[in-house]
């Protein structure tokens, strides 16, 4: 672990890009933990004396059409966005890894069929699937997490499955079979631990995608509802405003959202590099 950390730090230090991604990710994680306490105003307080104010020294990012301080809302938003994204992603990783191991290890018709179904789900417009599913299962944050978590299962199942194909042929599995371990034991004690690496390398990248998905859903009014401070919902309230030139209402939340996704993406790439330095 210590070796891994020092190696990781060496890799990050060498590249400006990784350094940028690392610092920015850390900032977003800090905002997730204490963002609402750092906010200069209450993110849900609407001040009736200050509608649509452009950015100024009092309101760094301006105020929106109901007088809420945009800066406070932008830095409070990671709380909800990252929480949903983390929980959904954990559901996907757990179920996806298990399904990946099972479909990779067993070679019979039902595991084959399961693998095909997972592949098929991945081809479909995930945003549309998620939107439909959230509406039908009832629009609340709990269902949002479950739905997104389930629809991202194939990503991890696929990653783990392809790793299992390689691990399954290795000598130590052969040895485990020869010494008379049961199928289930080989599966969960021998193959699973050595097949998880691609899944947790990808975790950070998928986290970014999930944040994009959550904010897209909120943008069309299916995810997190206003006035909760959430990037997608904030951009959505700014759509009519940008037509009359109030650019600061949607632009700042949008920039924060993109920056967050970008940093987690870069961190994913950095992790890839740390785990496998020979990669491009």
């Amino acid at each position, binding site marked *: 672990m210590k070796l891994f950390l020092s190696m990781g730090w060496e890799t990050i230090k060498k590249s400006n890009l990784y350094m940028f991604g690392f610092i920015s990710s850390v900032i977003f994680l800090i905002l997730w933990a204490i963002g609402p306490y750092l906010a200069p105003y209450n993110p849900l307080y609407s001040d009736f004396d200050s509608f649509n104010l452009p950015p100024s020294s009092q309101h760094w990012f301006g105020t929106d059409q109901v007088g809420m301080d945009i800066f406070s809302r932008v830095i409070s938003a990671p709380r909800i966005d990252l929480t949903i994204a983390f929980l959904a992603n954990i559901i996907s990783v757990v179920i996806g890894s298990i399904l990946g191991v099972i479909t990779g290890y067993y070679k019979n018709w039902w595991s084959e069929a399961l693998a095909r179904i997972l592949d098929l789900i991945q081809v479909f417009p995930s945003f549309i699937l998620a939107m439909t599913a959230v509406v039908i299962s009832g629009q609340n944050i709990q269902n949002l997490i479950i739905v997104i978590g389930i629809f991202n299962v194939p990503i991890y199942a696929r990653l783990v499955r392809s790793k299992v194909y390689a691990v399954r042929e290795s000598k130590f599995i052969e040895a485990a079979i020869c010494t008379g371990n049961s199928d289930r034991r080989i599966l969960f004690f021998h193959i699973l631990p050595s097949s998880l690496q691609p899944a947790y390398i990808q975790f950070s990248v998928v986290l970014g995608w999930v944040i994009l998905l959550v904010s*897209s859903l909120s943008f069309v009014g299916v995810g997190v509802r206003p006035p909760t401070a959430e990037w997608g919902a904030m951009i959505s309230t700014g759509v009519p405003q940008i037509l009359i030139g109030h650019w600061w209402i949607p632009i700042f939340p949008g920039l924060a959202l993109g920056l967050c996704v970008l940093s987690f993406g870069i961190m994913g790439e950095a992790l890839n590099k740390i785990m496998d330095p020979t990669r491009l």
Partner: protein
Amino acid sequence: MGKYVLKRLFIMVIQLLGVVVFVFFILRLLPGDPAIVQAGPFASEEAIEITRKEMGLDKPLFEQFIAYMKQLTKGDLGESYVTGNDVADDLRIRFSATISLVIIATIGATLIAIPLGIFQALHPDSLFDRITNIYGLLAGSWPDFFVGLILIYLFFYLLGWAPPPDGKMSPLIFPPKFITGSYLVDGLITGNFEAARSAASHLVLPSIALIISYCGVIMKMMRTTMIHVLESDFIRYANLIGLPKKVVRNYAIRNALSPVISLIGIRIGVMIGGTVLIEQVFSLGGLGQYAVQSASMSDYNALTGFLIVACIITLVSLLAVDLIQASVDPRIRY
């Protein structure tokens, strides 16, 4: 080739069946009760019970499935309780607005991304390579609807070059006769060039937004595969026996295209999702806006109808991509 096309069509029929079954079960197995959604937020217990009977939700799952399949084979998607029309009709009217956007954006993104990727791969680590790499990194991080918003601010509000995002065409112009549903095509067919021009100008910004968002991934893929191919043995061999540079380059491009084309196919599904959001921003009145409206009103039939249509569009575009791929790469045909 003919044999491959037949085989691929057969696979699509199976996939279609799979989609229909999948959509049915995913909707039934999800937590939540469609009857409550369909009956509306203020329905009483009895009203919900009646709706449940009407929708056939009180019958066993298998019977429901048979009824649903029967309905589908007739092309009947039920009635939308928001618009009061047949969902199939609603979708038909809006279909071409969405499809024209998806087609324009896919072709545009492909035509821009592939040459960029090839150029990058031929000149790695040049200034151009670095700039486009930064673009590739940024493009995937910002949602397409946000890109659309920025374009609106720049080109409509600040510069005044683009029309306002007020629909498929200017509301002041009399729309052309309904033929395909796309005002651009209908206007051209009926000779209503004013409408066609207005419709075209209303498509420019949404298409650019989609192209900006989806170009990056394709470009990155093209660059990586091209670099990979350029390092492979057969290219080295072709260079060593002294084939002209241009010939070698074309060998490499043809080999690198195949995985890129299949990536484009996979991205089309994502792009259809993105189109939903873009339509919302530009109020283009296509399938996407209809879906969002149905979602916000919890219009069950309309939503499921849209979901099936979106899945079918995805499958058809996958088919198209596979056929294109087969014509580019003979290894797939045989």
